[in-house]
């Protein structure tokens, strides 16, 4: 198992190399004027300025030369400087990624906990009132567009009921905790600032719920159907015949086997949300990587597009690895070759 994991980890840089190459070549061949973020409109008629800016940003070099320079810098951890923010892309990502990871982690905890709970109870009490209501709740979560549910939730819980604060990671009047991990919840905890921790969690609750609700629907439906299938298997009947309590049958026998497809979905959902939580980030003014990716794509910010692609690819590769490991944990009969 350990050898398998090490081998997979060693393969990650090579995969990332491929992804970075494809991202670089695709973005460079996309239609559009990359100078739009660099050269003001009024200066576009000035060839001296245009050529100076091109030289400054390396855009005057042929594509193969640009590619070699980019990859060489990338190997040294330099993703280039963003056309939009004029800061190193690595710094932008380091600033924004913790915000997204904090949000997505919280959303996944909510989505997994509620999704599995609802799926389990729905399977146990199939076709009951609870089953129908829970399935309706889950269906709403996965079918309501986030831009709508987010705004409605904000209106109800923040504007009307005043149960939750407004948008952002913290009240704009507050000072963020000292940067240690970039996760405000962890950093305020490490600083022992309980008031700030409370504020962080209260700001996190609503966006995490909105994002997590969409995960609830996916997980609940999958757990329910997998469980129902598992419950009809011979080994479950055997366990029941041997007098095992229903709770043990459900959790120890059926759920563990039903988890395998769920783990696959959870892994990839987590990875997807790293760059895919754009709408939640926009509505809740959450300064994460999703909104950074959209801004980069809209303005043809090549270095930022490359950086975000690498982050997204890394997330998927790690999620894939974590899922494989979780498979082995969930079902020891699944062996990994190593």
């Amino acid at each position, binding site marked *: 198992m350990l050898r398998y994991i090490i081998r997979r980890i060693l393969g990650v840089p090579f995969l990332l190399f491929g992804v970075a190459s494809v991202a670089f070549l695709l973005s460079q061949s996309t239609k559009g004027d990359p100078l739009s973020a660099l050269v003001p409109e009024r200066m576009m008629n000035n060839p001296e300025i245009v050529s100076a800016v091109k030289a400054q940003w390396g855009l005057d070099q042929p594509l193969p030369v640009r590619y070699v320079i980019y990859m060489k810098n990338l190997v040294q951890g330099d993703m280039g400087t963003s056309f939009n*923010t004029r800061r190193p892309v690595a710094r932008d990502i380091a600033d924004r990624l913790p915000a997204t990871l904090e949000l997505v982690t919280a959303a996944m905890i909510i989505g997994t906990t509620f999704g599995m709970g609802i799926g389990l109870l729905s399977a146990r009490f199939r076709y009951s009132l609870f089953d129908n209501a829970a399935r309706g709740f889950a269906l709403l979560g996965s079918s309501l567009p986030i831009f709508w549910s987010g705004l409605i939730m904000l209106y109800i819980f923040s504007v009307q009921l005043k149960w939750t*604060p407004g*948008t952002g990671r913290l009240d*704009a009047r507050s000072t963020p905790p000292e940067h240690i991990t970039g996760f405000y919840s962890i950093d305020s905890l490490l600083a022992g600032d309980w008031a700030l921790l409370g504020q962080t969690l209260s700001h996190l609750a609503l966006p995490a719920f909105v994002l997590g609700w969409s995960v609830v629907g996916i997980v609940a439906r999958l757990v329910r159907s997998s469980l129902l299938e598992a419950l009809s298997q011979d080994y479950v009947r055997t366990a029941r015949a041997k007098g095992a309590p229903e709770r043990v049958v459900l959790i120890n026998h059926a759920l563990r086997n039903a988890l395998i497809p769920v783990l696959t979905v959870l892994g990839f959902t987590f990875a997807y949300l790293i760059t895919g939580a754009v709408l939640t980030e926009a509505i809740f003014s959450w300064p994460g990587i999703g909104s950074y990716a959209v801004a980069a794509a*809209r303005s043809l910010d090549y270095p930022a597009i490359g950086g975000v692609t690498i982050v997204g690819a890394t997330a998927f590769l790690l999620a894939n690895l974590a899922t494989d490991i979780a498979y082995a944990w969930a079902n020891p009969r699944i062996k990994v070759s190593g």
Partner: protein
Amino acid sequence: MRNISLSKNRRRARRTGLLLGTVGTLAFGSALAAQETLVVGRSMDVNSLDPSRAFCDTCQVYLTAVYEPLLTLGEDNKTLVPKLATTWENNDTFTEFTFNLNPDAVFSDGSPVEASDVVWTFERLRNLKGSPSFLMDGTQSIEAVDTHTVKIIVEAPNSEFLNKVSAPYTGIMNAEAAMAGGALADESAATADGAEGWFLENSVGSGPFVLTNYAPEDELRLTANSAYYGTAPGFGEVVITQIQDSVSQAQALETGSIDIAMQIDADTAKNMNNPDVVTEIVPSFNFVYFAFMPGSEAMKGKLTPPVREALTYAVDYDGMIEFTVGGNGNKIAAPIPNGFPGTANLMPRSQDVEKAKSMLADAGLGDGFTMEAVYPNDNVYGVDLNIMMQKLQQDFAQVGVDVTLKPVTYPVWREDMANGRADLTAVYYAPDYYGSGQYAAYFGMTEGSTWVSRAGYKSPETVVNAKEGEIYAAALAASGDAADAKYEELAKELMADNVIIPLVSPNLVLAHRSDIQGVRYSACCNLPLAEISRK
């Protein structure tokens, strides 16, 4: 380029200033701690925090708070009033301008604002070739007459020069501090200046605030300048926080998370019935327009002046305002905002479909033709360009002209514009300072102008109007009513070009918590933060 060398006395003065500034900061710090924070919500569009490179609405707000130009615009949005320059004068031909600086003015590090700082700032602005560099176009010499007097000579009469030096982009920088950050002002600045990143973390102005933190598309945090020599601002700290859309800004305002929302649209404002929130709808100086591209391959020989004129009669201008901003906007005649010099007597265009049809028939296009409209897929100043172009598509269809809509991202739009790949386009404009000259320079059909290159592409003769350059020069050589008359003449020529057709000047919603006062819209500076306080 005049070499910047600091005299011994000045260095001493700077050291003293720095010391005083430090002591002042310590003493003032505890007072500030007790002061409140003003939170402003807006969708940030910052392209830079370097005054010589920045060019955006948020930049105007930031630069006005942190840097001070020589002059500024009064509350009437017309009159120039003193800022760093207490008095100024010009010769009769508007070619020489002399500014006398306030001897009490100091930068945020406590060092005095001197004429050499003005010279350095303006030379950098000119030589950097950034977005606002056009403000220094035509300057022949910029010299420090003495410590507090600056004389600027321009190549040709320019009665608008004083307006230009009221733009926030001309805010004066502490030359010594900026140079220490890698800023250059000489001819090499355009290629060798390396201070843009430094300006994202540092400010070197004499304004009422200083920069404390900038996180792109997240927050811009300012603190009151403890060394400020003028009236202290109403808040010890200002945070401009990123909130993307109008509805989210309205909700944040209602919850009290923010004190001011800058981009609430009129429709959203109507639905806010919160006693703690005040909304006021005021006309803006921004406008959205469409433009014909007679130089495009498909339109050669087709979009002639009479055909362009005919099509302007097809547009339902009143309906457009209803359709795009729910009636919360104004018609605008020429591509110069209402209220700017030369616009008082202009008659806005109106729809006359029959006349349009008749003119098209006379031009041999009675059976209509097809056009492709390429425009940025954006929502600006509350106007969704897609919706606006759909309405235009309907209007043109009435006279048999079939428009294909092609919304694209901004970089694609710019590439298409540079390569004559559109027959029709739509975009927007906001003033950089109070004055009509900027519109003549940008929208005028004079050879080499931005819009001649775009609209005319490889056939500039299809759009060039030689008279406009002459009228513009005459306007710059005049002042007062005479200049207004020239700008009116120019505006009528711009209308007669029938290339740039303004459609909507959307109203602006000033929305803030009811305990906030001093919120106003400025034609030069957008939102002057230092004037805002809590009741």
